[in-house]
């Protein structure tokens, strides 16, 4: 009986631990759109976010040489090339950590979502919000492969 139970218990622990260290970084950008031509961004605060992630995103965009503002208004006071929306999801495992961050780029006129990036990190693979913002934005800009028309 022990010979059966030991590997079984081990397999369950391996599965549980594997579940704790799952990561995914995925971006999808419309090839008809050239993000590199877009210079001004407005990050709309996610209403459920009380950690100021909108400021982290705007700071990152500014550090990339772009002009980014942030706020609660969906329509900024000044015209911009891109409206940035995001959703952050947090979980608790000894401490709170960011499980998932989605960032979307939208056309200010039509609201068309032309770029989306998502980072998903379970507890053992957790990163700080700053690092999650960095990796999603870097991945979105990297994923932009424009199709010549």
């Amino acid at each position, binding site marked *: 009986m022990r010979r059966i139970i030991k590997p*079984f218990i081990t397999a369950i622990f391996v599965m549980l631990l*594997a579940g704790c260290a799952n*990561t*995914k970084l*995925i971006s999808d950008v419309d090839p008809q759109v050239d993000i590199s031509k877009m210079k001004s961004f407005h990050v709309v605060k996610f209403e459920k976010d009380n950690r100021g992630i909108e400021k982290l995103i705007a700071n990152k965009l500014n550090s990339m040489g772009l002009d980014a503002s942030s706020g609660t208004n969906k329509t900024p006071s000044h015209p911009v090339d891109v409206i940035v929306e995001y959703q952050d*999801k947090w979980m608790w495992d000894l401490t709170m950590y960011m499980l998932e961050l989605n960032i979307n780029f939208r056309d200010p006129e*039509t*609201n*068309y979502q032309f770029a989306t990036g998502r980072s998903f990190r*379970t507890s053992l693979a957790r990163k700080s919000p700053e690092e999650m913002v960095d990796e999603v934005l870097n991945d979105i800009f990297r994923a932009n492969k424009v199709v010549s028309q």
Partner: protein
Amino acid sequence: MRLFKYSIALLCLSFLTGCAVGNQYDYQQADVSLPIKGTDKVSLGVIDNRSYVINGDKSANFIGLQRGGFGNPFEVTTSSGKPLTEDMSDVLERSLVQSGFQVNKLYFSSPDTSMVANVIKNNGQQKNIILTVSEWKTDVMMNIALIYDLELQVKDQEGREIASASARSTGKEKISGAGFQGQNSRVAVSAFETKVSRLFNNPAIVKALKD
């Protein structure tokens, strides 16, 4: 010892089924922002061309698989209970109306092209937007994979194609890590929003709907 065996059996059962049984995703929640504006009257139809639905292997509200602890699959269905294509049609109707179009919906009992053309001739408008779903399903275990094959066509009132755009996955496209039902549903719905709005942003489709 009997209690121990019983506990192990229960544990096995929970791993085999876990949160995997009876999952439903709410595609009615989708909000597809289209890259175009218009005021024309258009017709809209979504055709279910999934082989396993046509041959009766799966019901029309089948939308994918949720796997248990050992990879054992359980079917995921639409929250509305409606066929997937009806959910998609409702969502696209809302989106087109939001973009200014006047929409009347078309219903197709089969994907047969001559039947589609007949429906358009009898009930269509000058511009008819047809989305053919040859594949759309998620496969969820540790990650969420999407398998899809979509074609968007704009047809004239005779059912002739004016423009088309298509998108299909090469194998299983991983779109996120997996969570509980609600989270997986949001990811699947968001993938639908993205894939369909991309088709509408194809230059040929934009031109056909603007002209």
